[in-house]
């Protein structure tokens, strides 16, 4: 299982958001996309998923160009976990997860589809919620249900858009642990947009740091997350500790005073690059 992103470019109108992004990810790998707001993380996910159409470049999955698949075939390969889902109408947790089977069924559900949903719910310890309404769940529960739906889809690639948004510390760890476990167990390739660098460092096998629509650095967490890269891309001074191979990032000069390092690169300079 190998996904290759080759030279993808995307514009919103005349504003370039992705300028020539190339990345590769193998099976059993969890790739985190990090970078400041507006650096193109979510846009890249949406391009992979064909919600957006790249202007240039191609995304290849095991040598097949994703742009050539029809939407349903694509949905059988790629599962998408959004940041949050609107819940205007009361749908049970079971039916919400069942939607993950949509790309696999025509209209009638097979016993197998139901079995997959039940197994997914059990694996994620959501069984007790099966008949509760999705819109009545807490943020952490909702996030788990959305992940369960993507798993029931039986994809080979999992895309996650800031899955720890709105979650408390315990649920952040639980959800990310779950994702990392699934990636490992099912040999999935996962691409995840993340804001929290420490969580990304803890759970990812690879990290790509995006800056203004380009890949600034990519590789092992320890190689990418260093004080220099963070200073250049985020314009923030940090102290990076390296315990047992995983970097640990502490922002320094958080009060904004006496931080000569922080201001060495003005926003105007950053935009030109």
């Amino acid at each position, binding site marked *: 299982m190998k996904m290759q992103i080759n030279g993808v470019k995307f514009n919103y109108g005349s504003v370039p958001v992705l300028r020539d992004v190339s990345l590769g990810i193998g099976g059993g790998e969890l790739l985190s996309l990090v970078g400041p707001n507006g650096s193109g993380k979510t846009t890249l996910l949406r391009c992979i*998923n064909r919600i957006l159409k790249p202007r240039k470049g191609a995304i290849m999955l095991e040598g097949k160009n994703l742009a050539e698949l029809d939407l349903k075939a694509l949905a059988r390969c*790629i599962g998408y976990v959004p940041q949050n889902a609107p819940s205007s109408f009361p*749908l049970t947790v079971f039916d919400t997860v069942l939607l993950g089977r949509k790309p696999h069924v025509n209209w009638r559900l097979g016993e197998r589809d139901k079995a997959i949903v039940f197994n997914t719910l059990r694996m994620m310890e959501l069984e007790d919620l*099966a008949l509760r309404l999705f819109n009545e769940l807490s943020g952490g529960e909702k996030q788990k249900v959305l992940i369960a739906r993507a798993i029931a889809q039986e994809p080979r690639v999992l895309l996650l858009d800031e899955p720890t948004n709105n979650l408390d510390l315990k649920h952040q760890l639980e959800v990310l642990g779950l994702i990392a476990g699934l990636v490992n167990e099912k040999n999935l390739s996962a691409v995840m947009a993340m804001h929290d660098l420490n969580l990304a460092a803890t759970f990812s096998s690879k990290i790509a740091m995006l800056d203004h629509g380009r890949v600034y650095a990519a590789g092992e967490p320890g190689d990418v997350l260093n004080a220099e890269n963070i200073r250049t891309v985020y314009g923030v001074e940090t102290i990076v500790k390296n315990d047992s191979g995983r970097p640990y990032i502490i922002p320094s000069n958080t009060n904004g005073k006496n931080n000569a390092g922080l201001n060495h690169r003005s926003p105007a300079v950053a935009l030109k690059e």
Partner: protein
Amino acid sequence: MAAKGEVLDPREAYSRLTARKILFILIGLGGLVALVLVATSLGSANISVGDVASAVVARILPFLGLQIGDNTDAIIWDVRLPRIVLGVVAGAGLAISGATMQGIMRNPLVSPFTIGISSAAGFGASVAIVLGAGMVGSGKYLVITNAFIFSLLAAFLVYGLARTRGMRPETLILSGIALMYFFSAGTSLLQYIATEEEVHAVVHWLFGTLAGATWENILVITVIFLACLPFLMKYSWDLNAMVAGDDMATSLGVNTRRVRALSMAMATIITAGVICFTGIIGFVCLVSPHITRMIIGADHRFLLPCSCILGSVLLVGADLLGRTAFQPTVIPAGIVVSVIGVPFFIYLILRTRKEYFQ
């Protein structure tokens, strides 16, 4: 509803829930048949439910050789049944249109009426009544064809406007509401310049009634409804996915633009087909899907058929009430539906613990 406190295997619980939904459909169908029989038996001439049943069976299964008085047969088949059967098909058609539109727009406040289709029909009818001008047909058909064509015209306009913005629900709703005001103003203008007699006719048309029922009307509506039903049912999965957001639906393999455009087209044609014969009966569209959602949830595979049944029951019931409550005065079904339906609906909203839309 999940059983509280009780430990139940989720599989067992889910199949029970599904069984309950199917039971609800069956009970609804049974109730509808009973209501139709009772409604047919009530009226100025004295006819028992048994007479109605045998008169219906006698015509449907003539080889049984049931004997019915000519008079009874004529009252049932020529006077009462058309009106009641029209109530059944019109109610079902309006309800499924409402459920579909609420689904594709992801908004429980939408119905073919809030997005201008009915105002356009009213405008079309007014043009025919007041100016005597129309696109196709003449005489009594002028009003019908005009109402139908203007409804479709409004839908095309809404669709055209929304297309420029990628068929987002917000654009569809906003352009629909704008058109609704436009056509209402047009109707008001026509009433302003019309003679008293014409104003009376326009107002009467706008009330919405089942009084003009004929078997031909019923046939037209039924054909449209049955032609669209399988496609809408097929889309019920896509509608479920689209309720979770367009991005989510796309990533589940749904072509959201196509589903939205086609479902809207079908909902419009059904609505236009109904209201061009009945006038504006609005509330059924909005409220049937809501009540159904409160009872069995929002899974469109069940929501669509159940809404249809409920819509039929509501409309036939309202017409029955309007016919019998203040005899000999007959109140149009369109009015009764709202007068009775609104308090009932408000009661349901207040009674339901759950916030079911935000």
